[in-house]
C-alpha cells in the first residue's frame, strides 16, 4: 500500500474508501501502528483504545460491504479532545478531579459524528480544563510538538493539534475559548477553525467560559475543516445558545473563487505594531500578504483600537465564568472525593487536591472579580470593554471582508519557557479578541520559520461569515509557497 498516511485528509480518505483502495480497519490499523511508534515521543493521547477503535472500524467496513454507509466519511478516524463527552468513555479534562468519571451521554458533536460513521479515535491531551496555551497544565502528561519535541504543541487543544500534525489520526476535535484551537494548530502546522460562537452546540463540552467556548475542527487542510463543520454545526435544542440553522454546506464550492479580485483583506495596524512579535513571524506574514496580493486581493488598513485591552478583558470575563462553572466540581455527586471531618473541609480538600495550579489561579481570579466590592470595577468593566472590542470588529468589516493577523506572536516555544503566568496569557494576544467578539477565525499554515517550526496565519471573518472565510483560506492554501506541512518526526 503506497498511501502516505501522514498526509492523508478526510476528503482523500473518503475517495480511497469509496474506491475500495483501503478499508476502515486498514486505515485505523495504519494510524494505530504509527501512533505506537510516535506516542512515546509525542504523547498526544490520554487514551487510545485499540479494541474500541477497531470494532468501530469493523462495523464501518460491514456497513460499506452492505451498501449501507452512513456518509462518504464512514470509517474515517477523528480524535476527540478530553473535554468532550463520549458515552462510556472517561472525560477527565486532563484534571485529577475527573480522573475516573465516565460520561453517561454523547456530546451533540459526537452524536453527529457517529451518525456519519466517523470512528472515534482516542482522547487527546489538553491543558487542564482548557486553561493554558502550551498543554503543560495537563495533570497527566506533557505533549510534545512533532516538529521539535523540545517544544510545546501549544494549547489548550495541544494533544489534538499534535496528533494530527504527527499523522497519528486524520483529524481531531478541539475547543477554543481564547485561541485554544487556532494557537496549537499554528504551532503544529495544521488547520484550526473556530466557527462563530453558537454555530456548533456546546452540549457535552465541559464548560470553561460559557460565553466564549466553541468546539471546532483541527485538520490537515481547509477542506477537511469545512467537512467537519458541515457535520457538526446547527441548532441544538440542548444548547440554548446555539444559532439557527442556515443550511449552508461549507465544503461545497470551496474552489469557487478563482482569484481574490474584489476581496478586501483588512490588516489591523495594532496587530503588527505589537511588542514581542517575532521578526520571523512578521516576515512570514509579509510573504503571505504578497500571496493574497498576487491573487488580486486588495489590502486595506483597518483599526482595532481596543485590541490591546483584549487579554485583560478576557482574563476578567473568562475567569469569572470559569469560577462559576468549576464550582460544580466539589466531590459530592461525581469525581474524586477527599474524605474529611466536615462538609466544608470535604470541599476544601477535594478541590485543593483535585485542581492544578493554573486552574486554582483562574478560580481565584474569577472569584475575586465577582466578589462584593469588586464586581463593578472588574467584571462589569470587562463586559463593557467587550462591547468596545466587538464594535471595533463591526467597524472594521465595513472596510474589509476578512481580517489577517498572525495567530501567535512566536513559533512554538520550549517547555518551561513561559513560567510566568502573565507571559503565557500574552501568547494568545491575537486570538482572544475573536472569542470576545464572537466571530469566526481560522489558523492556516503559512510558512516555515528559519528555526524550522511552522508559522500560521489567522483570518478572522464576521459573525456567520464562515463560507467566505473558508473560501478565502482555501485559495490561500492552494497558492502559498510551501505546499505541505509535514514534520520530520
Amino acid at each position, binding site marked *: 500500500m503506497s498511501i502516505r498516511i501522514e498526509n492523508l485528509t478526510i476528503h482523500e480518505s473518503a475517495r480511497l474508501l469509496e474506491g475500495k483502495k483501503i478499508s476502515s480497519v486498514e486505515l485505523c490499523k495504519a494510524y494505530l501502528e504509527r501512533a505506537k511508534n510516535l506516542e512515546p515521543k509525542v504523547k498526544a493521547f490520554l487514551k487510545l483504545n485499540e479494541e474500541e477503535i477497531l470494532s468501530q472500524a469493523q462495523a464501518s467496513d460491514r456497513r460499506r460491504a452492505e451498501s449501507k454507509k452512513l456518509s462518504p466519511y464512514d470509517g474515517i478516524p477523528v480524535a476527540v479532545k478530553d473535554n468532550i463527552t463520549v458515552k462510556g468513555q472517561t472525560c477527565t479534562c486532563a484534571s485529577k478531579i475527573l480522573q475516573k468519571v465516565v460520561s453517561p451521554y454523547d456530546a451533540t458533536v459526537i452524536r453527529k459524528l457517529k451518525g456519519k460513521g466517523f470512528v472515534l479515535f482516542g482522547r487527546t491531551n489538553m491543558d487542564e480544563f482548557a486553561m493554558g496555551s502550551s498543554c503543560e497544565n495537563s495533570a497527566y502528561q506533557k505533549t510534545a510538538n512533532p516538529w521539535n519535541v523540545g517544544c510545546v504543541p501549544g494549547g489548550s487543544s495541544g494533544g489534538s493539534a499534535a496528533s494530527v500534525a504527527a499523522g497519528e489520526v486524520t483529524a481531531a476535535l478541539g475547543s477554543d475559548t481564547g485561541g485554544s484551537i487556532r494557537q496549537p494548530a499554528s504551532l503544529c502546522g495544521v488547520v484550526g477553525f473556530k466557527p462563530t460562537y453558537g454555530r456548533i452546540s456546546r452540549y457535552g463540552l465541559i464548560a470553561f467560559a460559557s460565553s466564549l467556548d466553541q468546539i471546532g475542527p483541527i485538520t490537515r487542510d481547509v477542506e477537511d475543516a469545512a467537512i467537519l463543520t458541515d457535520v457538526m454545526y446547527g441548532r441544538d435544542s440542548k444548547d440554548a445558545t446555539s444559532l439557527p440553522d442556515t443550511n449552508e454546506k461549507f465544503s461545497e464550492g470551496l474552489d469557487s473563487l478563482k482569484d481574490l479580485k474584489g476581496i478586501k483583506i483588512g490588516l489591523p495596524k495594532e496587530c503588527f505594531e505589537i511588542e514581542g512579535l517575532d521578526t520571523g513571524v512578521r516576515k512570514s506574514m509579509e510573504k503571505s500578504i504578497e500571496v493574497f496580493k498576487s491573487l488580486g486581493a486588495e489590502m486595506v488598513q483597518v483599526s482595532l483600537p481596543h485590541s490591546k485591552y483584549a487579554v*485583560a478583558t478576557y482574563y476578567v470575563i473568562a475567569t469569572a465564568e470559569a469560577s462559576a462553572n468549576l464550582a460544580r466540581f466539589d466531590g*459530592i455527586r461525581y469525581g474524586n*472525593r477527599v474524605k474529611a471531618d466536615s462538609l466544608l473541609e470535604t470541599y476544601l480538600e477535594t*478541590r*485543593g487536591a483535585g485542581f492544578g495550579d493554573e486552574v486554582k*489561579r483562574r478560580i481565584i481570579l474569577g472569584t475575586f472579580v465577582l*466578589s462584593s466590592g469588586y464586581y463593578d470595577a472588574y467584571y462589569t468593566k470587562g463586559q463593557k470593554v467587550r462591547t468596545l472590542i466587538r464594535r471595533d470588529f463591526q467597524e472594521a468589516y465595513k472596510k474589509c471582508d476578512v481580517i489577517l493577523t498572525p495567530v501567535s506572536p512566536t513559533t512554538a516555544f520550549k517547555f518551561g519557557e513561559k513560567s510566568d503566568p502573565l507571559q503565557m496569557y500574552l501568547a494568545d494576544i491575537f486570538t482572544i479578541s475573536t472569542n470576545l467578539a464572537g466571530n469566526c477565525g481560522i489558523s492556516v499554515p503559512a510558512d516555515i520559520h528559519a528555526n524550522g517550526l511552522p508559522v500560521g496565519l489567522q483570518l478572522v471573518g464576521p459573525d456567520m461569515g464562515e463560507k467566505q472565510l473558508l473560501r478565502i483560506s482555501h485559495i490561500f492554501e492552494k497558492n502559498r509557497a510551501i505546499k505541505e506541512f509535514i514534520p520530520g518526526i
Partner: protein
Amino acid sequence: MKIIDVKYVAALARLELDSEKEERLQKEMETILNYVDSLSELDVSSIEPTAHAVQMTNVLRDDISEIPFPREEMLANAPETVGGELIKVPAVIPGEEEN
C-alpha cells in the same frame, strides 16, 4: 494595602492552599491584576456591557416529555451511594454525623 487577599478569596472559592502556594499566588495575582488595571484607562461610563456575543432571548424547546437518563448510569460516577439509589453526602449539619 494589597488589592487582593488570596487567603480570603481562596476560602470563598473553597480551595485549600498551603502557605507556600498561597504566598506565590498572592504575588502572581498582584502582577496579573496590575496588568488588568490597564482597563481603567478607558472611560466606559456610557457603554452597555456585553454578556454574550450572540443576543438571543426566550429560547424555548417544544414541551415534549423525554425518557430521562437511567438512575444507575447517573449514579455510576458518585463517590458514594446509599444502596445504589441515592448519592451519599457528607453530613451537612454539624452533630448529625453518621452513627
